[in-house]
């Protein structure tokens, strides 16, 4: 269980301080798929960095099973926006990195890595460098690099951003199946409502700056889900509209304070309302 207590994060000092997150508290339950959604630029990535332990909150504390987060840990791994694979290592070397850095036995690592390579369909690409892989393959390699460490918590920060629509759908489907097979605590950040409804057990709608939780929506759609249900199912659409109207209000706030990304969102929302 991850518990955030009154988290406050600001950058800068005194008059020049910008508050990104203010008085943000919520609980992520074990083995649930938690999705955080909010307009671009609200500070979702900052929150991720705090939970991952790369940065410390200005005030408040983050507890994992009662213990405070003091730094990064291989039980809590982040899959970043766009590729953060090590460019000078082959796919295989990338996947081996975590266990070998912790001094695990080479034979054990190779066995685990081979299984994973098979699972993510990258056996043929094991000896290729990241730059030689397609966008989708890079994402799968990065998932495998995290999964080999068998983390209790997987943190994914808009992991499928920048992929083309087809690949994105495939990756979503793929990751949903993967996490249904081996349940673990997931924290998935996105700006895409369809993606959010498709994946989530619990959906956290965030407010615009300073960021905190606006609402938590329980997405009680049966699993396994298919991407089509998210479009066709009435209950799914009701949940989606509920989240969207909340998001719309936040995006309006973001827009009036000058965020360009929010303007795009508002336009998309209008179109959606018109067709619904």
């Amino acid at each position, binding site marked *: 269980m991850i518990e955030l207590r009154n988290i406050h994060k600001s950058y800068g000092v005194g008059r020049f301080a910008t508050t990104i997150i203010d008085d943000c508290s919520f609980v992520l339950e074990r083995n649930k798929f938690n999705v955080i959604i909010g307009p671009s630029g609200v500070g979702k990535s900052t929150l991720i960095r705090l939970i991952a332990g790369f940065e410390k909150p200005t005030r408040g504390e983050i507890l994992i099973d009662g213990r405070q987060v003091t730094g990064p840990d*291989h039980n809590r791994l982040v899959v970043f926006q766009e590729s*953060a694979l090590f460019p*000078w290592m082959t796919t295989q070397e990338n996947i081996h990195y975590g266990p070998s*850095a912790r001094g695990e036995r080479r034979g054990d690592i190779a066995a685990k890595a081979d299984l994973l390579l098979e699972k993510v369909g990258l056996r043929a690409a094991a000896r290729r*460098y990241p730059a030689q892989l397609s966008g989708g393959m890079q994402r799968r390699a990065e998932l495998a690099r995290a999964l080999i460490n068998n983390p209790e918590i997987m943190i994914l920060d808009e992991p499928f951003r920048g992929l083309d629509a087809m690949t994105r759908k495939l990756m979503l489907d793929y990751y949903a199946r993967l996490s249904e097979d081996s349940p673990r605590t997931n924290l998935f950040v996105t700006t895409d409502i369809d993606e959010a409804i498709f994946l989530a057990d619990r959906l956290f709608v965030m407010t615009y700056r300073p960021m905190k939780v606006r609402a938590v929506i329980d997405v009680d759609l049966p699993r396994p889900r298919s991407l089509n249900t998210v479009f066709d199912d009435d209950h799914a659409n009701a949940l989606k509209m509920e989240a969207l109207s909340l998001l719309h209000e936040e995006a309006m706030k973001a827009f009036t304070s000058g965020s360009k990304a929010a303007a795009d969102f508002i336009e998309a929302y209008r179109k959606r309302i018109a067709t619904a």
Partner: protein
Amino acid sequence: MNSEQILPVSHRDLAARRGASPWRMLARFRRYRRACMSFAIFLGIWQLGTTGKSWLGHPIPILCQAPSPGAVLAAWGQLVLEPAYWQSWYLSFTRVALGFLAAASVGIPFGLMIAISPLFRGMIFPVFELLRPIPPLAWVPASIIFWPTQELSIDFVIFLGAFYTIVINVVGGAANIDARLIQAARSMGGSRWNIFRRLVLPGVIPSICVGLETGIGITWEVVVAAEMISGGGAGGSGGASGGLGFFIWNSYIGGSYPDIVVGMISIGIAGYLSSAAMRFAASKATPWLRER
């Protein structure tokens, strides 16, 4: 899946350089054809300028004074038979190699220290930045006084020429490593040493290569001036035994103008060969950039 099939046409040239396919032959031919044309046009203009001397009643700058390509070629034909000419090559090459190797073996660790240690950076970088703008040639008099032999003072000036460039590139390269890579490695349990060895070090290799490539070019610019000023070097004042730089200066004193041009072109060739060798080594050292 064959990677060549999915590459767009514009990338075929790149791909063709590796694969043993008909594309490879064609790409080679194209490159060489352009190189030949470029040399032919260069020689043509040179020849026209030296024979015509003037155009529309005005003397053509530089070229009207220069020896013709034919005269240079004749002088060169004579020189390649003289061991002294090759002695100049040998001397300049050993100086460049010595100074450059010293610069690389001191500069790379030095740059890495600045990059990873805030203490070292704080203590050393201000002094480094103060010394860096001083041109290597300004060091010539001091160098002659400091070092016991003239040879060592020339090597030192060459060393300085490459050293600053290498250090600056290493420092910049280390600063450009994506912070997310280091964060990812830290999360997965990489120790400081492991992160240095497996992320920082390979991460700066491309910048090291750029530094070495630029650095070796600068060493050739410096060696020539250092030899001219130091007046002959180890071989004493005897003819062309003082290196290619001294050879040019000596030819000027002796009034053999075609020899000056031969010396200049020789340095051009030497620099080109050194840079090409560095580029080759660089592409071997960074396979992840080469095999796209």
